[in-house]
């Protein structure tokens, strides 16, 4: 029953024209303010669950606008009739007054709230809950760490960080977990947020209608760099996704050229290897993100800086400048050494 209600809802059966006007009027100001920006906005949905929630939102705002407007009008009447006692036109009638309190304070709220409740929590909730295991085609496992997201594809050897790729229009089972503190995975255009809690495995549906890039962020305060723990979800056409995944499974692309080889030697000889993993090498650290395909990513440090130009060099020279409090120390390397390191890392496609 819930499913068919949902389907009807999605077919946009709106009520009578008068109510339509009122709802749009009430929500117009907010809509104007909100429209036109926000790649991290729940009000710009790009999937069914997010779309259902957005519609629910507008309906609730419409009702809230009517209630609020009504109360303000009543207060205005109170001011305009401040020299007379009693209600306008009706005069002093205490049972009407009590009746008004009962109707506006009990009866109408009960009716409206039952409606909102039934719709939100019995209908829409059905679609935003964790997907049934059998209903999804792919599983992505995201582990929250202070302060980056580790992304794995169970059943494959693929590991990356902060940038999740999924095939477009495919139901993906997103598993959220963590081994340190509570974080929260939130990609507003695609679905609600889900906390990652130590000792628990939480799941939501990840689904995108259209190819594109969707921005998300950690949504549970997790310490010093909570503000810089963002992520991207890339929805790719299936062929491109499969190619990407195959690439992610491969180990390190061996360094080409003396500078890159020198950079790899510096990487292994210094602290880098004790915190980072580069599959296919001796570097097996698990404190920082997996760097095997670093070049593939569009950003560094959880979307803090772009992965182009001299950002990587400046990051390695002074990680604390961009993300103070993060766990990567300044390594005390010379500029020449860092340049070699960068050459090596930029070859990790």
């Amino acid at each position, binding site marked *: 029953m819930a499913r068919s209600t949902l389907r009807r809802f999605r077919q946009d059966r709106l009520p009578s024209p008068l109510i339509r006007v009122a709802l749009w009027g009430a929500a117009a100001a907010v809509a104007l303010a*909100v429209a036109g*920006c*926000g790649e*991290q*906005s*729940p009000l710009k949905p790009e999937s069914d669950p997010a779309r259902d*929630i957005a519609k629910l*939102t507008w309906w609730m*705002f419409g009702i*809230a606008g009517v*209630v*609020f407007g009504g*109360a*303000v009008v*009543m*207060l205005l009447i109170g001011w305009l*009739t401040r020299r*007379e*006692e009693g*209600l306008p036109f009706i005069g002093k009638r205490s049972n009407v*007054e*009590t009746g*008004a*309190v*009962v109707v506006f*304070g009990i009866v109408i*709220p*009960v009716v409206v*709230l039952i409606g*909102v*409740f039934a719709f939100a*929590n*019995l209908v829409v*909730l059905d679609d*935003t809950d964790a997907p049934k295991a059998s209903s999804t085609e792919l599983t992505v496992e995201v582990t929250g760490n*202070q302060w980056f997201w580790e992304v794995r594809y169970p059943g494959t050897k693929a590991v990356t960080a902060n940038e999740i790729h999924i095939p477009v229009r495919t139901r993906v089972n997103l598993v959220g977990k963590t081994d*340190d*503190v*509570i974080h*929260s995975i*939130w990609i507003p255009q695609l679905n*609600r*947020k*889900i906390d990652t*809690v*130590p*000792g*628990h495995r*939480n799941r939501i549906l990840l689904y995108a209608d259209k190819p594109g890039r969707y*921005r998300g*962020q950690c*949504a549970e*305060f*997790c*310490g*010093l760099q*909570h*503000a810089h723990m963002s992520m991207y979800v890339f929805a790719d056409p299936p062929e491109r996704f499969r190619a990407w995944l195959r690439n992610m499974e491969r180990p390190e692309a061996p360094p080409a050229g003396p500078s890159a080889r020198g950079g790899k030697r510096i990487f292994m000889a210094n602290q880098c290897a004790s915190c980072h993993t580069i599959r296919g090498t001796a570097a097996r650290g698990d404190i920082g993100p997996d760097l095997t395909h670093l070049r593939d990513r569009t950003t560094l440090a959880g979307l803090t800086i772009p992965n182009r130009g001299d950002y990587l060099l400046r990051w390695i020279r002074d990680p604390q400048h961009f993300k*103070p*409090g993060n766990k990567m120390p300044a390594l005390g390397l010379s500029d020449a050494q860092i340049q070699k390191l960068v050459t090596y890392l930029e070859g990790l496609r």
Partner: protein
Amino acid sequence: MATMPAPLARQRTERLQRIWEEPKGLVGWLTTVDHKRIGLMFLFTSLAFFAAGGVEALLIRTQLIRPDNGLLSPGAFNEAMTMHGVTMIFLVVVPMSIGAFGNYLLPLMIGARDLAFPRMNALSFWIYVASGLFVYTGLAIGSAPDAGWFDYLPLGSKQYSPGPNVDFYTLGLIFNGISSTATAVNLIVTTFKLRAPGMSLNRMPLFCYAMLATSFALVFALPPLNTALIFLELDRALGFHFFDVTKGGDPLLWQHLFWIFGHPEVYIIILPAFGIATAIIPTFARRKMVAFPLVALAEILVAFIGFGVWAHHMFAVGLDTITTIYFAAASLIIVIPSGIQLFAWITTIVTGRPRFKTPLLWIVGFIVLFLLGGLSGVTFAAIPFDQQLTDTYYVVAHFHYVIFGAAVFPLLGGMFYWFPKVTGRMYHERAGQASFWLSFVGMNLTFFPMHIVGLLGMPRRQYTYPHGLGWDGYNLVETIGSYLLAAGLLMVVTNLAVSLFRGVPAGNDPFGGDTLEWSTTSPPPSYNFAVIPRVTSPYAMWDREDRQADQRDLAGPAERVLDEGHETPASSVLDADWDEILEMPAKSWSPILLAAALAAGFTMLLTRHYVIAAVVALLALVVLGGWHWKEPQEA
């Protein structure tokens, strides 16, 4: 009544004054047990903490005025936002509501001469001050609590918060909780037992119902918090594993325990404000409250239902569906008693002949802001919506509308309303109205855009944010709004401070109030009432015959004058039949000494000197024993 008191009447009032007056000077204040003095001490202390919390807020807003700002480091920001929350909730709003307003006004409104336990009242205050200083010592040494005001685990555990920051939080809040619990118990017993004989429960003012509901909520809400804090401190200090998933614990246990406290806490924050609104509205609307019994019942229901909704703070955590649906349903139910009160207030204003003076303006502002905050709260009962917008600025907007708009606005209105009673002088009306409008505009400018920026995806508790997500303009407006709000609040304080010295003398009852405090002089005498008042309705001050009968009693039969000692009547709980005459304690050093001992004990716990802490605890028990040694009749 401007008639000259007869000689017998004057004799009696002078005798009462001699019996009840307390020493002037510092010693008088340190040993006071007078609820009015204690109420004022609570007020000034909470205003000082309000300023501190306000500075923390301005720091936050200034840091967020533009993207990638560098005013505060992430660590400093985390301390500022945590301290802002802890200060405002535990050190400002609750103490101001129950410790200042409840303390000062409850005995006056019920016709009593003090609270039921005057020395415990003083203890509440000294513990409050000590606990506030305890937490702020953390700030002073650069280790303020920094894991958020609800300090989720494992972030707040020793492993991820190794410094003493979170220990200041846990021990400081346990310490502070003793104060609130003691005040709550005091207010309940006073309301039950010390009402003027004849003031049966249905003749009690609505303000007293609100304080009663608040106090019951505190009695049952603080213990879960204490359990959580004790567990946390044991984990941190002694290596226990309540919240440690690798050893059979669960971080969600903290969340459940915290929110079982935390949700009733927000009703504790707002109920006294409802009480203030129900005191101001009849006076300025010049009519009795519409649907009085419904409003009284609604106030109690809010406190009661508030205990059943806690997990609506945990909708994104991964609880099972049935559980989340139950909590959403319960959260919707609580809308009903709030709605009843809202429409009763509005209807009373509409059907009365309202005078929109400063106190009523703050209450009208409160109604508008409470409605907005309540509506955004209701949207959270739609679980999928909550799961999108929780932990964003939309939630920050919601709770500031209900805390600032619905709890602080009435407190400010109440400060104006009772200013003449407490000081004997009138505040400046035009400046008062201007300060309201400035604060109202500033408040909305600060917090309304937060709804929008949350809907644009901005999470909360970030020390900075990137350019390009559409958040910049709104944050700028919010910061400007916060400065306007600060200016409005400064205007309030300046008005009251200047009026304290230069205000026009106010007289006993400048507004035509409906409750008994307006029958005393301004300020009230140390003994509150020369004659324990006769009461036949909840609007005692509007019952002229009863007030005239009191005047005749003062010059005539002595039974309700009670001037043979430090006396006040005790009556039965429901019908207020006169039961006995109580001899009340007078000034005492025990409360401040006990508070000092407890402060030393908590400090020893903080520094892990457990043996010394145990010794101090024994010392505290000795002080407690000494406190009870001298009996009332030996005074």
